[in-house]
């Protein structure tokens, strides 16, 4: 309490400083006057003073009133503040006197700080911001692994066994993703929404409480439980206007009524989109997947580590459980294992590497910017030596002057920081637009408080980095010689030139690192874009239709719907072709299953061929432009009444029928029933198609088989439309064509194939664009840096150059003399940068595609480009040296 009153007392003094000083002056004056009077009155006695002496004696008795005033002033504890505000005012006066210097320095810093801010707001939002779960570091996402494809979803029976057997996890929950059609009075147009069917303990395990209503009850885990949902906050807002009365009402999903029992909090985040949440018992109702150990659908399993259990202990336990289950169920679990990752890693997945590379790059940009500004300060410091020497002579302490100069740096860096924030807002906006919308799964990337704190730290850091050396240097000079000479031949000059050259070398080596990184990304992206995906993306539109199982329960109804949609869409003007397929490449969706090749020796569990399979309509290959290599494609005659046919891709044909004609060979889905009860359903291969890049351009093609939709009906299909006009212009016509078949049917995931292809390389492209921008910035700054050094040295040596020319030096000699220093700086910088970047680019190798992290061509190009730019930057001042008129240069002496 007392300290607070004291502080308030100090504060009130701060605001009445002028009054304070006047009071103190008056008080001291009175004291001296009274003392003087006393001395004078003693004049008549034996100890008295004559009047003039009395005044002096009184003053002497009092002491140094100026110093005492200062000490009194200091006792209120505000001297630091007064010095600071004085220094800040002084800094602004200095800047106003040198607008050019100030503008360049502030702009340079703004670019450096702005770039840092933009990147850090991504790093913070994605990698650092706390996840909205209780004790999120103890949450683990679990997957099964299979020998053929790596991580897969956990089948529900396996999940149940894991949960029972595991002691390392205090809780475990499953989240099954379900799609629903939402149609009816509450929506203007039928839409597809995503539901998460969760184990009833999910929310409490995550530490989330519904905003309104209730959490699920343990009894709701059983199949056959009443259909209830929790609404996500956005859905509650958009469809119910945030009405609290929504609780207890119903929402119609796939023509079933679900009772709304609650609303999720606004900050709820999940790995996948989740518009509604429902108890897993609803998902399990009449669902064969709920009891099929081999069915690995859209399940995410999440668990909380028990107190005191480490990640590694849990992994060991889970591996043992998985091994046990593999022994027990070799057909479904053979060769399988468990993968676990922290929930943070599950969110971040592959963006961490790119973000860290960019963050590293942006720190380099800041260092280059600081080096440049330090260089500017050194040049200006040279012009200010006389002023500083004068102030030292008048008694200013060295530390006081260093602080004053650091204050100048701080003010400059703050101005740069403010401008940088404005640039960062633009940068964040631009970068977000380069990424597919759901890249960061709901991470908030913005200029929030932690980002602003980071900017403040960067400003202080930058101010010290570029301000300290010039400030130390400026106060180091010999006052005497400075005052006498005017500083032209100061001994500190050599030291300063060396420092400036070192800064330029540093800038060039950092620039080379950035250039090499950007070059590697450019080459990598070029390689990626030139990968043949196995299909054409031009003018093809893709969209998903997931039929409502209530309305379309039987195959004939489903097939009839699809046929009508195809007929209607194909009749639209501008449509060249339309087809249906279960899996669109590059979307991340996939269906895989084991197959048996006729005549092959039966493999061990886990070793079965495990291709991707597609159910497709006739015309699919033509619409997507997938080349048919042999045989024929499907026709309308390949239907539910004809014999089973299939297509295989080249890779599968090569692997299982090498040097044979695959057409006419047979395979079947799944494993043969050895009991002989179910005769094998052999599928005859009628054609071979080219491999496609289903899983992204950078990933190898896998085995693929295709079978006709009419022989294997599916209620969830992608409609692909090839048009001879801009595909985006077709969307509304296609919508109405589908609506004319069923007005309640939702269409979603609408995208052009070009967009999907471009999105699939979005991370690499963003990395390239940002790295490219940084390295261009670095190149310019480094060029300015070396230009500054050389042109300053030319200015300093004008006299010497004049003498040389007067003595008959040739143009070439002068040019060589000036360029020599520049070449030295450039070469040392390039060599240093080369050595460092070879080590650093290895850190980005996971971002690169078919180019080595030490690609010699890229490094050589970066080095040559940088060297040429540096030389050009030196050439400009060198030409100025050639124009030196010896008469003028000598007259200045």
């Amino acid at each position, binding site marked *: 309490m*007392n300290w607070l*009153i*004291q502080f308030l*007392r*100090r504060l009130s*003094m701060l605001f009445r400083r002028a009054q304070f000083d006047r*009071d*103190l002056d*008056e*008080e*001291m004056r*009175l*004291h001296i006057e*009274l*003392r003087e009077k006393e001395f004078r009155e003693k004049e008549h006695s034996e100890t008295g003073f004559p009047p003039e002496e009395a005044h002096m004696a009184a003053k002497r*008795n*009092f*002491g*140094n*009133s100026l110093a*005492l*005033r200062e*000490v*009194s*002033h*200091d*006792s*209120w*504890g505000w001297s630091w503040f007064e010095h600071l505000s004085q220094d800040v005012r002084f800094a602004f006066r200095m800047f106003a006197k040198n607008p050019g210097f100030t503008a360049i320095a502030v702009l340079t810093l703004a670019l450096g700080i702005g770039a840092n801010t933009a990147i850090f707001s991504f790093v913070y939002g994605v990698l650092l911001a706390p996840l909205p779960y209780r004790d999120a570091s103890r949450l683990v996402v679990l997957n099964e692994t299979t020998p053929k494809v790596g991580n897969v979803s956990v089948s529900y029976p396996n999940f149940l066994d894991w949960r029972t057997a595991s002691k390392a996890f205090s809780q475990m929950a499953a989240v099954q993703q379900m799609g629903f059609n939402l149609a009816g009075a509450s929506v203007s147009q039928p839409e597809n929404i995503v539901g998460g069917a969760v184990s009833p303990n999910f929310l409490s395990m995550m530490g989330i409480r519904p905003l309104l209503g209730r959490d699920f009850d343990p009894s709701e885990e059983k199949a056959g439980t009443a259909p209830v949902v929790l609404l996500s906050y956005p859905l509650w807002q958009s469809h119910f206007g945030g009405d609290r009365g929504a609780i207890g009402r119903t929402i119609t999903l796939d023509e079933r009524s679900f009772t709304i029992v609650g609303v999720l909090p606004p900050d709820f985040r999940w790995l996948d989109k989740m518009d509604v949440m429902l108890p897993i018992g609803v998902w399990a109702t009449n669902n064969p997947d709920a009891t099929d150990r081999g069915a690995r659908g859209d399940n995410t399993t999440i668990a909380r580590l028990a107190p005191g259990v480490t990640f590694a202990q849990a992994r060991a336990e889970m591996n043992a459980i998985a091994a046990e289950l593999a022994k027990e169920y070799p057909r479904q679990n053979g060769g399988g294992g468990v993968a676990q990752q922290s929930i943070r890693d599950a969110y971040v997945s592959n963006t961490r590497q790119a973000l860290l590379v960019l963050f590293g790059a942006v720190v380099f940009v800041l260092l280059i910017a600081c080096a440049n500004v330090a260089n500017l300060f050194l040049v200006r410091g040279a012009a200010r030596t006389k002023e500083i020497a004068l102030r030292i002579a008048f008694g200013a302490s060295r530390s006081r002057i260093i602080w004053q100069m650091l204050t100048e740096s701080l003010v400059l860096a703050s101005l740069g920081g403010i401008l940088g924030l404005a640039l960062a807002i633009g940068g964040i906006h631009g970068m977000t637009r380069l990424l597919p919308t759901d890249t960061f799964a709901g991470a908030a990337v913005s200029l929030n408080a932690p980002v602003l704190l980071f900017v403040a730290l960067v400003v202080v850091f930058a101010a010290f980095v570029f301000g300290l050396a010039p400030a130390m240097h400026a106060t180091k000079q010999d006052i005497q010689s400075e005052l006498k000479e005017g500083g032209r031949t100061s001994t500190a000059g050599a030291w300063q030139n060396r420092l400036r050259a070192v800064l330029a070398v540093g800038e060039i080596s950092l620039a080379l690192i950035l250039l090499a990184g950007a070059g590697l990304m450019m080459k990598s992206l070029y390689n990626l874009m030139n990968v043949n995906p196995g299909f054409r993306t031009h003018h093809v539109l893709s969209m998903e239709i997931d039929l409502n199982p209530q309305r379309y329960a039987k195959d004939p109804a489903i097939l009839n719907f699809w046929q009508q949609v195809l007929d209607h869409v194909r009749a639209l003007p501008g449509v060249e072709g339309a087809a249906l397929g279960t899996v669109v490449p590059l979307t991340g969706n996939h269906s895989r299953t084991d197959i048996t090749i006729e005549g092959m020796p039966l493999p061990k569990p886990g070793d079965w061929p495990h291709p991707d399979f597609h159910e497709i309509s006739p015309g699919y290959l033509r619409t997507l432009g997938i080349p048919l290599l042999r045989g024929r494609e499907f026709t309308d005659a390949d239907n539910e009444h004809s014999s089973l046919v299939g297509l295989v891709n080249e890779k599968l044909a090569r692997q299982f029928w090498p040097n044979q004609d695959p057409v006419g060979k047979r395979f079947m889905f799944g494993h043969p029933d050895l009991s002989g009860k179910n005769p094998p359903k052999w599928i005859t291969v009628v054609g071979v198609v080219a491999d496609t890049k289903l899983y992204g351009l950078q990933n190898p093609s896998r085995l693929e088989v295709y079978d006709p939709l009419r022989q294997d009906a599916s209620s969830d299909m992608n409609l692909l439309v090839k048009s001879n006009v801009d595909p985006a212009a077709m969307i509304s016509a296609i919508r109405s064509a589908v609506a004319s078949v069923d007005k309640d049917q939702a269409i979603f995931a609408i995208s052009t194939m070009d967009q999907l292809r471009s999105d699939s390389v979005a991370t690499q492209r963003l990395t390239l664009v940002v790295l490219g921008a940084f390295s261009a910035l670095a190149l310019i700054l480094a060029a300015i840096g070396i230009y500054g050094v050389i042109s300053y040295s030319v200015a300093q040596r004008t006299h010497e150059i004049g003498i040389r020319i007067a003595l008959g030096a040739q143009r070439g000699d002068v040019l060589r003399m000036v360029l020599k220093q520049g070449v030295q700086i450039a070469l040392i910088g390039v060599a240093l940068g080369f050595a460092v970047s070879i080590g650093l680019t290895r850190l980005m190798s996971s971002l690169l595609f078919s180019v080595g992290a030490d690609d010699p061509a890229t490094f050589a190009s970066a080095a040559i480009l940088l060297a040429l730019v540096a030389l050009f930057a030196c050439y400009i001042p060198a030409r100025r040296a050639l124009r030196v008129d010896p008469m003028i240069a000598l007259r200045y002496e």
Partner: protein
Amino acid sequence: MHRDEIPPGTLYLMILKTLARRRELHGYEIAKTIQQNSEDVLQVEEGSLYPALQRMLVKGWVKASWGTTTENRRARFYRLTPLGRKQLEIEQSQFERVVNAITRVIQTA
């Protein structure tokens, strides 16, 4: 006449004690009172009174207000606060402890 410097740290004590005896005093009066009460042996280095008074203001031991002297001059008068009175007791007992200790050391030596 020989005058002694006041021992360091005792300036506060003397100012507090001086103000405790009188209702309020201005700076010159404080200096003069200390000098007279010490029968001219102790002399405050006069100016140093003022930084000390400022520090005491910050700490809330004294309060200051402007008034006029008997000779009708404007002057700043200082008076003790309750906190200052408490501080006087602390400083005084502390001082006595130190002096007693030193005296004992000197006498036994």
